[in-house]
């Protein structure tokens, strides 16, 4: 892990139209090259809003974001080329096959020809989908869909990869395959920003985590640092519950 920031967030704010409170309330932090950074928080904490802004889906109300040294809003088109996203929902065309889906998304990232074809075949093989590649995605199990969803976000070898709950609703086997390959992608040089409700997975997977709630950062550090600094906590889940309280969220 090199120690220069690939994402610099300064006083980021987002208040949606007609909303009484901000979804993101002046957060500032940096994410370093090649790290796996966990953005954790309960439902409605502001995780997905933060990631959506970083992906260029919508602009912030205030603050600045620099990605790879460039201002996000002024260099949106070029920044989108180095960013990959694996959304929480399965963002695939159910009536297309896995291969057709990946071919389309690959083209949208600017890939084409034999390069695209090779990448598709390589990833389908790595994630155990080669045999089912010509079947429509609608016939896949939840775990298979998650794996195709992941490939669609990493096909273009992005410098930065946003993962919004990439293992939600999948069996242990699929989860292990996904996590193992994400680690390999990270080792190959991709910075990963990861959100999850799965605290044990985050504890093992992330180099650093940030726990946010009500659009603000509550604590930030390595999982070990957070556990150590929280009285009576021996794992990340206890840290999380102490900070965000046990009250149910919408």
């Amino acid at each position, binding site marked *: 892990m090199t120690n220069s920031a690939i994402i610099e967030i300064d006083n980021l704010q987002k208040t*949606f*139209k007609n909303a009484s409170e901000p979804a993101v309330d002046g957060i500032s932090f940096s994410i370093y090259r090649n790290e796996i950074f966990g953005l954790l928080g309960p439902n409605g904490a502001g995780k997905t809003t933060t990631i959506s802004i970083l*992906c*260029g*889906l*919508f*602009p912030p109300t205030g603050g600045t974001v620099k990605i790879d040294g460039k201002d996000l809003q002024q260099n949106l*088109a*070029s920044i*989108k*080329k180095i*960013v990959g*996203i694996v*959304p929480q*929902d*399965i*963002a*695939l*065309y*159910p*009536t*297309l096959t896995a291969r*057709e889906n990946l*071919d*389309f*998304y690959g*083209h*949208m*990232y*600017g890939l*084409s020809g034999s390069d695209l074809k090779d990448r598709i075949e390589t990833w389908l093989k790595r994630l155990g989908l080669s045999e089912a590649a010509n079947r*429509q995605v609608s016939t896949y199990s939840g775990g298979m869909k998650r794996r195709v969803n992941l490939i*669609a*976000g990493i096909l273009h070898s992005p410098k930065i990869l946003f993962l919004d709950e990439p293992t939600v609703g999948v069996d242990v086997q699929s989860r292990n395959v996904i996590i193992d390959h994400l680690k390999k992608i990270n080792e190959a040089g991709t910075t990963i920003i990861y959100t999850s409700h799965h605290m044990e997975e985050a504890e093992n997977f992330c180099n650093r985590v940030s726990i946010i709630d009500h659009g603000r950062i509550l604590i930030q550090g390595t999982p070990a640092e957070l556990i150590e600094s929280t009285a009576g906590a021996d794992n990340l889940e206890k840290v999380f519950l102490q900070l965000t309280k046990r009250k149910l969220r919408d």
Partner: protein
Amino acid sequence: MISKLIATIKKETLLLLRDKVGLSILFLMPMILIFVMTLIQDAAFKTINEKGIPIIFVNNDKDSLGILIEQGLRNNDLCSFHDSIDGKPATAESAHKAVSEGKFLVGIVIPKGATNAIRKNVTELVDETMNTDSLVLNSNSTTDSVEITLMIDPVAKKSFLISVTSNLHEFISEVKTKIMFQTFSDQIAEVIPGKPATPKSAYQKTQIIKYKEIYASGSKEKIVPNAVQHNVPAWTIFAMFFIAIPLSSSIMKEKNEGSVFRLHTMPTPYLLLVNGKIVVYVIVCLIQFLLMLSVGLVFLPMLGLPKLVLGSSFAGIFILTLATSFAATGYGVMVGTLATTEHQAAIMGSLSILLLSALGGIWVPSYVMPEVMRNISTWSPLNWSLSGFYKLFLRGAGIADVLGDSLKLIAFFIGTMAIAYIANREKRTI
């Protein structure tokens, strides 16, 4: 960029081909619609033409007027002549009852002594003319009037009845004139000694005004307005605009399935993604058009209906069809972008197209609409398209005549795309 566009077109094509129900809606339903609508409308006219208008005739006169009208009606293809009801000779009362029950569309009662009344009036007129020095008629002489009763089924459409009763009025009037002419001739022969009686055929010489009805089409081909010429273009345009429903549904599906979320994070402009859809759906519209033309050119004639006459400008047809396809596709993109749910898109799309088609003269011709609606009608893109196709198919117009309509449709496409672009940008600026 071209590679991305081709990939988008490929994706849209695959999505469309895999949606069997959607495909059948796009291609089969419009063809069935044309079949049904044309057959129904043609059958409505045929019923009148082949079987004739059911008329119950009560002849209480039993003389020239009654006999001549009866002969005329019996020999007229437009009429289905009846003078009895349930095997019994019709009377004024039974005819009234039968018409009110819808058994006959029209009832005619010739009163007793109608011919005698005409003769009497003419005789008096001749007598007065011949026996006095002055041409001033005796104001004390009485004139018998003849009242022929026309009974009309209250359920029948007014416009249709006006046409039928006008014809009957004209026919009865001609018979009456003929009797008057003959009576005049006979009377004059009586009062002028040595003058031979006027031959019966002499009346024909009075028929000096004749009518020649032609359709003022610019085409060298003989284009006769009929159910096929009117229905095929009208329902074709309607079906082409109905593409807005599957297209908007496809946009909504992408939103719901999360593909739009991913696509917006990719280095691909919104317009390029939409252009892929436009290319595919414009091609679908063109295929729809060809299929529906084939219905008019091949399939409807197989059922004994007239063959669709395309006019003389194939370039004009192509330009206008392309412009209509773009307008319909742009409208679909706009609906899909503005709607927030698939259900909303379907309702918004179908109802607005029904409204635009009703305003555009697809259901009823715009010339029969009230002035206010007629003015509103000129703002419907379906009206521009229909007007263009009528020029080509019925008036024998050329490409220059439909350029205005085509440009309006292209302007509509640009307008809808601009709205979709702005709406998409606004929705993302949440």
